[in-house]
């Protein structure tokens, strides 16, 4: 699973962090998403799609 984040679309809600904090973080100065790893560990297979699904601006794209 490969992850792409779109910083322009991101509204800084932090919902991705709440769901998968090993994969996503927020920039300190404006809360915009930081992708910590574009190739997460297998045990995060569920958390990452959930994070992508709850993102208010669909800023997270998963590429299988």
């Amino acid at each position, binding site marked *: 699973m490969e992850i792409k984040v779109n910083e*322009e679309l991101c*509204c800084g809600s*932090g919902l991705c962090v709440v769901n998968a904090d090993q994969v996503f973080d927020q920039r300190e100065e404006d809360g915009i998403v930081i992708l910590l790893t574009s190739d997460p560990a297998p045990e995060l297979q569920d958390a990452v799609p959930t994070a992508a699904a*709850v993102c208010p601006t669909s800023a997270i794209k998963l590429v299988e």
Partner: protein
Amino acid sequence: MTTTGHEVDNYPFGAATKLELNPRYAEVRRGEGLLRVRMPFGGEAWLATRHEDIKFVLADPRFSRAATVGKDVPRTLPVGSPGSTLLDMDPPEHSRLRRIATKAFTTRRVEQLRPGIQANVDELLDRMVESGQPADLAASLAWPLPITVICNLLGVPYTDRGSFRTWTDTALGLAADQYDEILSARQHLSEYIAGLIAQRRVQPTDDLLGALVVARDNEDRLSEAEMVQLGMTLLIAGHETTASQIGNFVYTLLSQPGYWAQLVADPQIVPAAVEELLRWVPLGASGGAGGVRIATEDVELGGQTVRAGEAVAVVVASGNRDDKVFDHPDEIDFFREHNTHVAFGHGAHHCLGAPLARMELQLVIATLVRRIPTLRLAVAAEEVPWRAQRVTRGVLALPVSW
């Protein structure tokens, strides 16, 4: 005059009573889904009642908030969009302004506030318990807590709460004859925030209002009007909605049998319970509280065509009861999985304060459950008084004993 030959419903469908959702929404969701309605002000609009359509409207860039500014658009609020506020802007201008404030509401920042907010809750509960029963939970806890938190965050003096709470309450009126009062209340709030900003130009502070001044004066990231409006938005949204929901949530937990007991027996489920209450409790008195969107081109929505220039209002409370998304949607179920409610909205305008609201709601409910497990209403549920003719639903008082 109708546009399609169908009868056009007047909207709202009826006055909001307590936390009851008008049964027309379920009918519409099952029927047209997207309904043509006549708004109290500004003419006809589309009403989106289904979860899927609501998310679509809130996220799709062809539905504009900026296009409503300065126009007599169809709406539920007597006074139109002021402009220069977050909610009246579209990306990219919206993103520029919003990102000045998002720093204060990141997951990490809000987590750092936890011990302080817990201390606020405990102190307020100490006083409530000390004053004896019955107590008014709205006056003792539901209002003071979010006001304390947002005052600390923004740097607004807690001692001014009587004034700004009154101005806010007036500014959120729905009745046509409140037009002048609403404008006047907004003016008062604007002058109040401008005064606090002026103080910070003499003596800089490290609170959020101080940060807005730095963003303006040192970095030119926003205009004077945007800065004042942003301060107002943060103050209003930072106390009114959370205070209303604390009252709404505790009322719901205490007035329907079994729910409070579930939380007392298993306090670990409080966060899930808060999410379920966010879904189930209709905070808005009606849809369109966040303002309508205007289509900038023809858009296919819910099997119909919204023409360029037409207005669409969403009813998140209806989307949150959509049985295509939620099993047994009208029941409160703390063990619901995949609770994808839209209580905080969707798209670029998703509630900026949501992490803070969640923190406050979770801490209030968890602390009440832990410290006052025998909490109950001190009057019959039917005797709890409710606000009327306001953008949000809320109790006027919540008499409790324990």
